[in-house]
């Protein structure tokens, strides 16, 4: 049994025309830091696409690596949803395909430094009948029920699943 990891960077994102997670790239002291900034008061969204290569079984884990723009406390809640299509098998129109029910997870700012990098994992249990080789769309959006003020900036998303 092995685990398949798929890292997704900000440059991989597809962004909607309305309320996209805003691209940001502060120059930093030593290097630029690309990210997708999710607003605290307007629900913003980003999409990622990947093939479900070697998917075996079980839930899909979506690890969100993030940091706060300004806050040093509070919670952030993100939701992940999957839309899976099996080429040649599914008759679903790809342009009207809907997402499965969203799964959410909450993280708490660890404090000390506002822009420290933190991570948490969303366990996606609503798998939309994912099978190996599927075309998969992942929607990642911030839930407005969380308490942290200011932007939550996502620097990387890592999707993982078992190959057996």
């Amino acid at each position: 049994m092995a685990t398949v990891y798929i890292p997704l960077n900000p440059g991989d994102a597809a962004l909607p025309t309305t309320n996209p997670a805003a691209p940001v790239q502060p120059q930093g002291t030593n290097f630029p830091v690309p990210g997708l900034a999710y607003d605290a008061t307007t629900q913003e969204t980003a999409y990622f696409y990947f093939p479900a290569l070697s998917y075996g079984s079980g839930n899909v884990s979506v690890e969100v690596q993030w940091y706060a723009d300004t806050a040093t406390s509070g919670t952030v809640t993100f939701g992940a949803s999957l839309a899976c299509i099996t080429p040649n098998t599914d008759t679903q129109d790809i342009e009207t395909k809907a997402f499965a029910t969203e799964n959410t997870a909450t993280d708490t700012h660890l404090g000390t430094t506002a822009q420290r990098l933190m991570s948490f994992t969303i366990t996606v249990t609503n798998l939309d009948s994912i099978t190996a080789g599927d075309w998969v769309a992942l929607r990642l959006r911030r839930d407005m029920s969380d308490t942290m003020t200011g932007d939550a900036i996502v620097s990387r998303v890592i999707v993982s699943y078992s190959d057996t």
Partner: protein
Amino acid sequence: MAVRFDAVGDELNRTANISSNTAFTYMMWTVLDNDAGTSTYQPYLFGLSADLTQGYSCGLLSNVFRIEVYEGGVAVRSGVASGRPALGTPACIFLRCSGTGTNLLTGGYRTPSQTTFTTAAATLGTLSPVTQVFYAGLFGAFWQDARKWNIKVWDRALSDAELLVESYFERVMYPSSLNLYLPLTSANDTADRSGNGRNPTVVGTLATGDTIANLWRPSQKIFLPQAGVSHAATGALVGPGAVVAGSAARTRQHAATGALTGQGSAVSGSADRTRQHASSGDLVGPGAAVSGSADRTRQHGSSGDLVGPGAVIVGSADHITPGGTHDATGALVGPGSSVSGSAARSRAFTSSGALVGPGAVVTGSANRAVAPVSHDATGVLVGPGSVVSGVAQVGEDQTLVGGFLWMLRRRKAWEDALRNVPKPVAEVIKTEAPKVIEKPKAQARNELRKALELENLPYRAAYTQALERLVQQMRQEQEDDEEEESIAEALALLL
């Protein structure tokens, strides 16, 4: 990379499929290489009507970014932004129109250190259609000296959110109403990549320059199976006839029914099963050759031989299961195989197989050792016809398996048969004897001669005589074994 427009005669323009006067967005990344001064208007791009008297532009004047609207050949309206991109600083420039009303012509710039655009606004008014757009070219008497790349043009006004996103990404993120996409990655790459086939006109001699601003691209995907997991393999690790220059190791827990190394394969390094596994296959398949060691070092339930029939192990072949037990029904060293190192079962086990199978040759020791662990072995320590040059012993506190003494006697008989024969020749004779036991003398002699030639050893008539003595000894042993077997069967019937 970018295209350098070096001020003298370099031009990039389109005269067809121009966006309408009421709905357009232009965007480009650019860096100014020379500044003509505060009193000279330095446009980044401009669009003009056929008679060159009406149009629009965005550029630099009086050290600020501005947008201008032209009627009658002069600028009649303008909008001014706060500040400008500095000389040598890359910036994303845009010019957008969503109608002709007030402030519906907007423009702006964003340097990499900015998170939003700095903007200016003006009224476009009603103009004659723009029929030519210059992304670089002569404006009045001025040629701009700048590098430009990633020019995107739409036949609509993008929203502020769309503008910001497009300014970060190299690719077109919102292709709706896309008119033109010029990556301008080099002087040789001025083609339109929008799919519309609207290649611009190039005038002058363009050069390639650096971009110094990284736009976002999709990353390389990496699929990382995690180490430390088990696998279910039914096939050989090394297939029949394969050659592995390095080691062939199953180092993870697995359920394998295949041999570690298949028949006839050759492994120059070690062939190890170093993890708990349930295997019914040989560790080293029949006829395989392993230059290093062939070890089962972990607890396992195996029904296969450690070394299959006819295999050659230059190193050791051990069941050394530290701290664990194993149930092996197979021989440690299969019939006819050769182990130059030791062949040891050094842990507690229950085995019904011979330690050294019939006809096998073990140059080192063949031990069932390591007291105080016990074992119940129903198989002989050294099988019929096999040769152990080193010590063949059962360790302390063991009950000798019946037949051990006759094994020692048989070994003595072999040594007598091969008396006065040089050791290298004796080894060849021991190998050949089982093969010619049923063959006529003349054929046996010829085969011995060939075997000696292969080993670069001389042939002597005395060697044939030694072969005949050993063959005779082996035949006698076979007869004895058959007789014992008959007696055992008869006794079994009686009992």
